[in-house]
């Protein structure tokens, strides 16, 4: 069983739930930006949650199947079509041998997850099939897909055709989007007034938004607390002695445009960070389009843990519904 790539879309990569354990060497966890959507897509077609699927951003790929398979498309609202016939999202549908899967224009969200029964069967690299393009590691030859590629697919079952995820289990960003943030790290480097402004202002997703990081524009520039820069940090007040960067951490080079590091994060560097997006809201970031108005919402650790628990409960309901 294989899938022929007739068109790659914009940037389509093989992703699973990532390769933890190598961030100390600069190799990020990677994996689907929207983990919940990838888990759901896999469960819909009868795969393990951690099987490899495809992640496509803004524009879907065009794929030809060489054998019958079950497919599910989750995440963003970008309707799938089989030989031109529309298919429902968040639902397992059949694609027969010789048929072609295409996609309509994106309606909302940013990224779709495409799961195929049996999973995309590229070799594992450091325990994962996720693509890390900068390191030419994992996925299909370490890079995004291109027309002419032939993707191997594992052995799957067609048993779960028609299975669907209830509307109330699907999660989409609000408008404006709200991302909950735990202040910390180098939060003390900006003035109290700037701390207030950061959470009061409306930001917009900038064009530079990808798997490594999401940049935001439009809020007021942050002012720094005066200090003599520590040795080795560099002369700009936004510089620190190069440290690790947490996933979800928000750095603000020069105090102007916040950047949230995501699944393909650089592991460290010399810019101060104001805090970190809580784990419960990481999936949402991957569904934000450029220009989406966004508010950062200040939360406590307690609230972060409660939100995490809520996501866990949502995932438990998904598993119960689909297995």
């Amino acid at each position, binding site marked *: 069983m294989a899938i022929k790539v007739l068109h790659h879309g914009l940037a389509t990569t093989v992703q699973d739930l990532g390769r933890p354990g190598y961030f100390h*060497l600069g190799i990020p966890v990677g994996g689907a930006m929207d983990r919940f959507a990838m888990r759901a897509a896999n469960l819909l077609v009868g795969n393990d949650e951690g099987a490899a699927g495809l992640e496509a951003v803004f524009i879907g790929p065009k794929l030809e199947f060489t054998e019958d398979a079950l497919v599910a498309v989750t995440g963003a609202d970008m309707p799938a079509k089989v030989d031109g016939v529309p298919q429902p999202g968040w639902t397992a549908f059949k694609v027969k041998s010789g048929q072609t899967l295409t996609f309509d224009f994106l309606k909302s969200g940013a990224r779709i997850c495409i799961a195929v029964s049996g999973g995309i069967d590229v070799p594992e690299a450091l325990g994962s099939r996720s693509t890390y393009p900068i390191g030419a590691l994992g996925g299909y030859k370490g890079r995004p897909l291109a027309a002419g590629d032939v993707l191997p697919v594992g052995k799957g079952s067609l048993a779960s055709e028609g299975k669907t995820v209830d509307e109330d289990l699907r999660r989409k960003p609000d408008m404006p989007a709200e991302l909950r943030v735990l202040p910390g790290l180098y939060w003390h480097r900006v003035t109290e007034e700037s701390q207030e402004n950061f959470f009061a202002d409306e930001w917009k997703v900038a064009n530079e938004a990808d798997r490594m990081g999401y940049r935001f524009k439009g809020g007021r520039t942050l002012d720094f607390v005066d200090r003599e820069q520590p040795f080795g940090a560099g002369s700009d007040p936004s*510089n620190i002695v190069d440290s*690790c960067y947490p996933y979800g951490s928000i750095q603000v080079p020069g105090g102007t445009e916040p950047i949230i590091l995501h699944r393909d994060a650089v592991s460290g560097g010399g810019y101060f960070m104001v805090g970190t997006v809580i*784990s419960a809201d990481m999936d949402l970031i991957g569904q934000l389009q450029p220009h989406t108005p966004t508010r950062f919402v200040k939360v406590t650790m307690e609230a972060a843990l409660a939100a995490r628990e809520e996501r866990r409960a949502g995932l438990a309901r998904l598993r119960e519904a689909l297995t």
Partner: protein
Amino acid sequence: MTIRYTFGGDEHLFVECNEEMSLEAFFTSLSMAKGVRESGIKGVTEICPANASFQIKFNPDIIHPDDILKEVKAIEGAAARAEPILKTRIVEIPVFYNDPWTHETLMRFRERHQDPAGTDLDYAARINDYGSVEDFVGAHSGSPWFVSMVGFVAGLPFMYQMVERKRQIQVPKYLRPRTDTPKLTVGHGGCFGCIYSVRGAGGYQMFGITPMPIFDPTQTTSYLRDFMVFFRPGDIVKFKPIDRDAYDQAVEDVEKGRFAPPIREVNFDLGEFQKDMDGTNARLEGMLHGH
């Protein structure tokens, strides 16, 4: 030094051993990171040491953030008493300074630089009070460098120059980061040297290029067959200036699987180093050349 603890969201504990870079701060961070690893605190999933800080990733479903903070703080005392001695290795890395590839790149991004009229080498030599680029290269390759962090992108070493602070080379980063840097560029930003393991964005000044791969996801390079990343924190690096012919020869040797960087096991004692930097460096270099 006062250690500062702060959370990076609900999954990371960030520990800053010192705001300022120093080898003492590096050793505190390294021994604390080691202490955390050895104590086997439940729920810890990853430990990432950095120059003067480190980060722990944990699963808050397994351990409450307050509890991990308590357990890590308990290690602080023992780590502070740990002897700053390291069994490590020294490696000699050939560098073709002022090469045509970084030169082409730095000219392409000249408008993002502090000194659009010159090159990165001219600029670094001038602001560090060297009379010529040759003198600057002499200083850059004249003493060893200590790998105090691996990261940013896959396998990239941050290197701290092993000389008194007043002799350390310091340069600002580009005014705006470049979108391109040749693979294996030898760069410098703040007080840190680096080798870009892969091609990509970067903000460090560019001084030259090495023919020696330090990251190989295919694991076909002879000395990267066991693992795809060459560097680990604590490695000591000595640069050796080479010319175009030697560079081309080394590239060919890498391709044919014949390239083998000189590597020797060494002991590094921070106390001994601080007492006599030049003497320690001479001993380390002597080991490299088989004395």
